[in-house]
């Protein structure tokens, strides 16, 4: 694998008020890999994801120091709009807007200035195809999105993120509310997206991380304990705490 760096964090510290949530994080993420991030609750996984596209700042109490680089560029030089267009996120629970399937996906392209109806339509179709949802919804694009099943809604969210053509997709426990079959479909979609996108998957489900990711990071109490090839992390962890977690002794 040619390891081209796409995201790099340097001494990243995050705080909500006076509580430190991420501690001196140095992490490198390679282009087109699927990086799994595992760890017990309150280990800073979600905060790390949301630091990458600055969503943390929606909370007025949030602050951070250190640096984050996207393709070699310090992200503080990018506007929120550009940064979030490049780094999309899928939330834990399927979050669809209460409008039609079509309008959910079309929203992103529209706010980024695509006004031509045919252009929007083709973006929507492509995005739905890539998210493996097109065949299930192509005849009912005008249906209100909340009427879809949970798994379909989550794939709709993936399509919505794909429609703004990001480089990186963040998944924040994307399958925590889904049944096993829907989960499998979301994981299939992730595998197919590997060719063109870098994906970071935060999950509470260590088995999912083992199934899907190529490399895996273990977070504990805001610290990066260990990062390695997934197979290595799960079979020969170097740190005792990682060993305890992946073998199910705590967490």
């Amino acid at each position: 694998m040619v390891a081209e760096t796409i995201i790099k964090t340097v001494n990243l510290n995050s705080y909500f008020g006076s509580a430190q949530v991420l501690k001196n994080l140095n992490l490198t993420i390679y282009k087109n890999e699927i990086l799994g991030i595992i760890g017990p609750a309150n280990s800073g996984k979600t905060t790390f994801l949301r630091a990458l596209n600055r969503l943390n700042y929606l909370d007025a109490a949030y602050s951070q120091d250190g640096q984050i680089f996207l393709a070699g560029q310090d992200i503080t030089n990018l506007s929120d709009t550009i940064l979030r267009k490049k780094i999309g996120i899928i939330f834990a629970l399927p979050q669809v807007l209460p409008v039609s399937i079509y309008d959910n996906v079309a929203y992103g392209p529209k706010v980024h200035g695509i006004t031509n109806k045919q252009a929007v339509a083709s973006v929507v179709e492509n995005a739905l195809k890539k998210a493996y949802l097109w065949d299930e919804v192509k005849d009912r694009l005008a249906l209100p999105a909340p009427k879809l099943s949970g798994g379909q809604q989550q794939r709709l969210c993936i399509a919505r993120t794909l429609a703004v053509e990001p480089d990186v997709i963040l998944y924040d426990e994307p399958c925590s509310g889904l049944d096993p079959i829907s989960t499998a479909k979301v994981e299939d979609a992730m595998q197919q997206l590997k060719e063109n996108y870098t994906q970071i998957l935060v999950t509470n489900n260590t088995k999912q991380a083992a199934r899907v990711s190529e490399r895996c990071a273990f977070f504990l109490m805001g610290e990066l304990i260990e990062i390695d090839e997934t197979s290595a992390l799960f079979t020969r962890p170097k740190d005792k705490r990682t060993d305890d977690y992946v073998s199910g002794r705590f967490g």
Partner: protein
Amino acid sequence: MNAAKTREKVAFYILGLAALLVMVPIVMTILYIVKNGIGAVSWQFITESPRNGMEEGGIFPAIVGTILLIIGTMLFSLPPGVFSAIYLVEYAKDNTFTRLIKLSVVNLSGIPSVVYGLFGFTLFVVFLRLGTSILAGSLTLAIMSLPVIITATKEALETVPASFREISLSLGATKWQTVRYCVLPYALPGILTGTVLSLSRAAGETAPILFTVAAFYLPRLPRSVFDQVMALPYHLYVISTQVPNMPMKRSFATAFVLIALVFLMNLVSIILRAHFRKKKQW
């Protein structure tokens, strides 16, 4: 077990009775006004100017005046009210400045309407030299309507789930795009309710228009926004207390028209709201 059942019954009847009691004054008022006023309401009464010391003819100029004042009030209060609420909920950070604004809104709603009248008179009529005019009256009523509009809009915006904003922002939309497409459409029914409520109140107010716009007797239509007009609530006050030998049924008929006007506004808002609700899917 039996005692609990009895208490349940007692509670049910007391609560139900209280709810029923609420209806009594409103039903009585409307019935009383309709009963005493409907006889004097005719096509003439609605479409003609008053004649013969207001004892004959109609109240057309007062109806037009009140409608003009409602429109003027809406123009002057809706944009600043809704915009400032959007600013407070979506943009403002929690600091001394915004807390001061919120405090002002709360206090503004506690000021008696006659004080608004006096304030409007000194500021708009005298200081800004607008004279007693539709403009001065609308501005005075607008200031009085602001707190209700701001509060209602704020509450409507706050009930829109935070996740809508997060989705929109996470896709790289700007703050304004987020507000415009993912928040406002869902807050609209609530904003509408608050606006109509405050405009209905403005339509029925006497004190704020007393010094700023209302004419005692002006049996013609206004020619510009700098004209005085007759207005229904003030006309009602005039014919009920200031004109001797005025037949009571004319007062009741005037009250009936005023109530009908307010009711009509509420009806429009109910229809609009039902229309927007259909779109609501969360």
